[in-house]
């Protein structure tokens, strides 16, 4: 099978695109409900899949990434996974802990984008469409199954038509917050670059605004310039999709890795915690300590102490005190005295 493809990348892309086609075939009732006005998105999606696999596989090939991916995937079905995933991927608890501003910005941006995708792509692939059998009622069809009947002028229907408008406002709000932070925050100003930090924000802003203009034209201007705006909007989405795996927005599809990392740390720490070679404190898992040693070896980094331990086997305070001993000859790491506070906040 593997020899049938030029590379693993080609294989993965081929299989994914085929899978997608099958899904479209089924979802759209054998291609009967494809909205051909949206074909551009389909092309964009295929290109995105190619780019995504290219980037993800290059990334996953790095030794430290491979370890966490492999071991994390094996542990995917831990009991704590749903909670970890909800914390990290749904409510962004860790970002909340970094401050309410960034949390709100991420909720707006993140969920604005995700909800938009949940509305747009089922429509594009014909997985979801609306039919009107009775007057005044729409039937929402998902994967060929009638899901729900909604009153055409009801609240639910209103939300369905305007979903993308609402998410557009969310994204615009989030982008504005992000831009404001990038202008004010000194560290952000120091590290940011246009291509990496600003471009994706402008792209999202462009998509949202052109989308809203589309709605505006339809409602207030009787569809004035609709085809042109529609093309501009469609192209802005396609360009963003193509760009997505290669810029800052890549952290969206890669974020689930943090769930894997958490599982990896929790599982192995329960199984076999690593005791510091000097003071005996548990500070990590045996597995991770060894994995890091192995990973570093592949980068030709090997830190061995006088006693023959690898430095990754020492807890952090002992490792720092061991450095004192290297600087002075005094065995600081062997002196059993509580270290002075090193983490006082300003």
């Amino acid at each position, binding site marked *: 099978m593997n020899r049938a493809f030029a590379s693993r990348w080609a294989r993965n892309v081929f299989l994914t695109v085929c899978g997608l086609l099958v899904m479209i075939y089924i979802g759209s009732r054998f291609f009967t409900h494809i909205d051909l006005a949206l074909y551009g998105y389909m092309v964009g999606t295929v290109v995105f899949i190619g780019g995504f696999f290219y980037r993800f596989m290059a990334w996953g090939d790095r030794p430290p990434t491979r370890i966490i991916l492999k071991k994390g995937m094996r542990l995917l079905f831990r009991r704590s996974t749903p909670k970890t995933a909800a914390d990290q991927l749904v409510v962004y608890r860790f970002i909340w802990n970094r401050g309410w501003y960034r949390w709100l910005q991420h909720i707006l941006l993140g969920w604005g984008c995700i909800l938009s995708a949940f509305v747009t792509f089922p429509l594009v692939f014909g997985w979801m469409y609306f039919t009107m059998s009775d007057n005044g009622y729409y039937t929402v069809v998902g994967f060929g199954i009638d899901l729900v009947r909604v009153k055409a002028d009801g609240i639910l229907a209103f939300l369905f038509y305007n979903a993308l408008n609402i998410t557009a406002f969310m994204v615009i709000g989030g982008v504005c917050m992000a831009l404001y932070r990038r*202008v*004010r925050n*000194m560290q952000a100003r120091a590290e940011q670059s246009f291509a990496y930090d600003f471009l994706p924000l402008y792209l999202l802003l462009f998509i949202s605004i052109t989308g809203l203009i589309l709605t505006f034209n339809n409602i207030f201007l009787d569809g004035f310039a609709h085809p042109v705006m529609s093309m501009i909007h469609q192209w802005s989405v396609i360009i963003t999709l193509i760009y997505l795996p290669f810029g800052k927005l890549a952290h969206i599809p890669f974020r689930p890795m943090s769930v894997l990392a958490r599982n990896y740390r929790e599982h192995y720490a329960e199984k076999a915690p690593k005791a510091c070679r000097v003071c005996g404190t548990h500070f990590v898992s045996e597995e991770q300590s060894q994995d890091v040693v192995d990973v570093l070896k592949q980068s030709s980094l090997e830190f061995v102490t006088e006693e023959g331990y690898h430095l990754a086997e020492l807890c952090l305070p002992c490792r720092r005190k061991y450095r004192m001993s290297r600087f002075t000859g005094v065995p600081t790491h062997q002196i059993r*005295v*509580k270290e*002075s*506070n090193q983490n*006082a*906040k*300003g």
Partner: protein
Amino acid sequence: MPKDKFFKEVENKRHPGERLVPTHCSYCGMQCGMNLRVDTAANRIIGVEPRYDWPVTLGKMCPKGVTAYQQTNHDDRLMKPLIRDDRSLRGTKKGFREATWEEAYDLVVRRFRELQSSYGADSLSVFSGVSMTNEKCYLTGKFARVGLRTRYIDYNGRFCMSSAAAGFMRTFGIDRGSTLPWTDLHETDCLFIAGSNTAECHPTSMFRIWEVQNRGGYLIVVDPRETPIARRADVHLDLRPGTDLALANCMVHLLIEGGYTDKAFIEAHTSGIAELAELVKAFTPEYTSEITGVDPDKLRRAADIYGKAPNAVVMFARGIEQQHKGSDNVSAYTNMCLVTGKIGRPKSGVATFTGQGNGQGGREHGQKADALPGYRKIANPKHVEEVAKVWGIRPEEMPQPGVSAYEMFGLMKEKTIRGLYLLCSNPAVSAPNLNEVRAALMSLDFMVCSDIFLSESAEYADVVLPSTTWSEDEGTVTNLEGRIIKINKAQEPVGESKPDWLMQVELAERLGRGEYFRHLTSAQAINDEFRLASKGGYADYYGATWEKIDRQQGVFWPCKDEQDPGTPHMFLDKKFYHPDGKAKLCALPYRPPAEEPCESYPLRLTTGRVVYHYLSGNQTRRIPFLHAMCPEPFVEVHPETARLYGIEHEEIVKLRTRRGQANFKVKITEAIRPDTVFVPYHFGHDESVNLLTIAALDPMSRMPEFKACAVQIDKAPQGQPLQAAK
């Protein structure tokens, strides 16, 4: 001023929406330059940025300085006047209610008037401090004498700089803490530093001090503890606490014996050599070693180095000054400069490390019981006349000299003093023999305290007035070099807080003394009057205008008029300030500490500071970073002593003297003499080491002997571990 070798041209980091206000630190006498970062829209101090172009410290700051800005908008700041109606709650934080300024002023004025009409003008007292600007220090002296018309005013410099002042006055006839600017220090060839834990108390001097060694010069440190500066010293004279006078006499003995004296200089510019030479004869290294416990060879080596050095600076601090012979120690160490002629020229001289921010300026302008602005004396009718003229009172109206800080507490207990106006000080932590002091505060009929936080001393007050931090007002301060510098205002006062000078002007108005204070409507106006009041005095500030301070990056006093650029180096003309123009060599017989170890109290207790806290800790203990770094006091014990008592690192023990006791956590270290224990004094309530210290006063300076008393360690009884004081 020429830039020294450490100076580097650096642009400051500027953040959008912020401005930088150049000023100085709120804490010690180094008065390190700093820029406060102020949010322009909110007009609020939000951070600090180094002031790279300040010539003394070049942007350097200790951890206190870095975090000093956090005082201004601290949650604990007093926002409104507080009144306590229930007097039985004094000595606690309880029972205060917020009041308006009018109500607080009315109460203060009513009670002051009642006390003065029943018990006389002198029944009121003012206890002040020198962590505030010259303008405030000056006005406080005037307020006591003109506003309250009491003789009883003194200040916390009695626990700080008074010995240095008295010693220098006796030797030179003038008291400027340093005879040379700090920018000379790194160019000298030998530093002889006695009783100064410089690395912890004046850290931003350290880069200059290390540079002396890097250049091949010598560092001699006299200290019972191996402090971070003593660790790297070429010679560390680890003497017993309280024996400095013997060591200083021995140094002079060895300098004479080694032929290091400058006979021409002694002849022309000093008096008293014969008596001195006679007295120090007895202080051979061997005899001195018996008293001080220092190896005779180390004494010889130290004297040789100092004697041979082409240029040398003798420096000292509270270690030698906070003794009941503190002023003698100052004069005795200064003798070293005089017999060798290493004074009155650049890169040589003598300096004391001023403790408080304005310890120098604050003692010159009339907050002392016996002094008037410009270092004038109340005992001198001509001086009184000069000041009375500026103040617009008749000379007869000038109150008589009062008593020193610690003695005021005695008068409170005797009911001679019945009312107290306390500002800018926290004697319930910083005074010696605290059980007595706290009882004295309890015995007051009325006490008003002005502070930025509710200090331990404010707990004894009936009325607490919210004062401003240094960053909410402007004015001048005189740093440890004698350089007058400018503090700038960075934000408006928080809440309803007011600067102390404004409170005094407003109180004076209500006391019916407004005519003497009404014109003082700003710090600048006070500065104008105060420069005039100092004109012609020893400490002449007349020419030190705010404009000149900005232009010259500080002005060294004396600065007599507009043309005078000031006096960075003292005595360049070899003229001293005694009537004969000569410096006095003082022959000072050795006296042991007031309380020597005995069978019941076999160890010596000495006190001092840690780098994270300032004085009573009222400010620094509230700063999260500083508190996290040093949350509680400890007692340093030598491992040999610990073995003898069977105590271990981190164990809690009880320290006991004839005056009091307190529990402390043990810190074992070989960096202290086995016969001595050390406790830092920054902590309040039952964590105060000053519950144990002795109030033996220096006869000249009235400085208590914080640095040496006899103590015993009690280990916890079996099975009943002691609780750390809280």
